[in-house]
Every structure is written in C-alpha cells, then in structure tokens.
C-alpha cells in the first residue's frame, strides 16, 4: 500500500514482526474531514431507500482514511521515525455526508 512506500513502516501490532524496536518517539496522529458533492449525496439517498451498499460513501471513507494515514505518516517523518506501530482508527459522522477520520499510533525507530 502507498503509505508504506514513503519509507515509514505502518503496522497495527504492538511490535514489528521479525524486527526489534529500539526507541519510541511519541504519539503521532492524522485526521481529515471529507464530504462528497451534493449530486452523490442525493444518489446515495436514493440508494439508501433500496438498501445495500452505499458505494459513494465507501469511496469517500476510503479516500479519507488514506489521507488520514498519509498525514499520520507525515507527522511521523518529522520525528525521523522509521515505523508507526499500534495504529488505531476512529470514525465520527459530523453531519450526514461528511465524515471525520482519525488515525493515531506510536512513532518508533527499529533496527
């Protein structure tokens, strides 16, 4: 995935499998609020009447999550971290059609 290509390893385990953590640098986080344009909101409203998956919002959250992770990685890079471990995600809906995505983890150095 593209966030690992940045040179920072991202995992949600407490340790990095097969590697040794030498130093913790603190909590890093990234968040983003995204919304779709009205046309897609209206389409989703109609799709909701029939039920099933709301593809517009799936895409919205997917993009938002990628951005949140990218910001978290950028935050970790300012600390010269080589990995972010124990990553957690949180989602909150502010209004219908806009979502806040929050990603956080611990920046570490490993060898």
């Amino acid at each position, binding site marked *: *995935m593209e*966030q*690992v290509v940045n040179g920072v*390893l*991202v*995992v*949600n*385990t*407490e*340790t*990095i*499998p*097969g590697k040794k953590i030498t130093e913790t640098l603190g909590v890093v986080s990234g968040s983003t609020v995204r919304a779709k344009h009205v046309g897609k*909101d*209206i389409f*989703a*409203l*109609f799709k*909701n*009447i*029939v*039920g*099933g*998956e*709301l593809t517009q*919002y*799936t895409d919205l*959250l*997917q993009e938002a*999550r990628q951005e949140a*992770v990218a910001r978290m990685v950028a935050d970790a890079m300012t600390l010269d971290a080589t990995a972010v471990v124990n*990553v957690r*995600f949180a*989602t*909150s*809906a*502010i*209004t*219908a*059609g806009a*979502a806040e995505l929050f990603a956080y983890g611990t920046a570490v150095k490993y060898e």
Partner: protein
Amino acid sequence: MAIEFEIYYILFILVIPFLIFSLIWTIFGLLYPLVFVWGIITSGKNIDKMIEDVNRRESETRKLRGKDPLSTIDGGYRNNVSDSGLVYASGVFGPSHWHLLIGWLNNLFGGSVTIFQKVISTGRAEVIQRLRENAIADGWDDVINVRIDTADMTPQSSQKGVKGVEVFAYGTGIKYS
C-alpha cells in the same frame, strides 16, 4: 439604473438556490414511492444474493490458501517474518426503508430484530472478505492482529440523511521469509 440592476442581481442570487432545492425535493418526493416499491421487491433478494456471493468468494480464498489468512492474535511469537505492513478494507451498508419499517414493527414486539442483524452481518462478512482479497492482492501471506470496527454513519444529532453503518476491518499483513 445602476441601483435597480443591483437589486435584481441580489434577488436573482437569493431566489436561484431556493428554486434548485425545491426542484430537487419535488423530484425526490415524486420518485420516492416508486423507489420504495422497487426496494420492497428487490431488497430481500439483494441481501440473499450478497450472502451467496460472499460465501462463494470466501470458499475460493480458503481453497487458494488452504486456510483462513486472517487471525486476531498478535504475531509476536513468529520469528520468521521478513516484511510487514498495514492492510485495511471498508464498506458502508444500510438497510432499505422497507427493512427499516419491518425493523420498527419488530421493535414494537421486542426480541431480536433479525432483519437488521442480517443486513449488518452481511456487510461485515463482505468487508472481512475484502480484507482477505486486499491482503492477497498486496502479496501478504497472513494477516495478524485483525480488528473490526463498526461506526454509525448517521450522526446522533440529526435524523436526516442516509441510514447506514460503516464497517471497517484492518490488520497487519506479514510475509514469511
């Protein structure tokens, strides 16, 4: 002359959004019964189709790998791991308005509200299967420390908008050396 023009300009700007919104809601009101009836006919069938589809893909993955690549335990005990990285999948699923009505009636009598349980568990199975497929597409052998989150898409403060839940699954993909 100039002042008159400005007044018209302001009126124009004020009126246009109202016209657009009223037009949209009129179209919505006219189409709603049709879409609702369409939902009654198709929504039950669509869920059954989704369950069938997920089960088929799941058994394909199991056949390909010999076992389920996902596990919820931390992989600290493994020492032959060469590479690792984050892998995730998500989806937003909602019951149809017909199912909401059935669910509301079901609520009156109490007990388990089977219809919502069916919708959400189908969505969850779909997302878990997507996680498996993403992991295989990224070239991971196994996925450890899998977590599954469910978030409400409709904010508690307002009852407008879509009714749905977001299912999100993530884990750490590992590659054996």
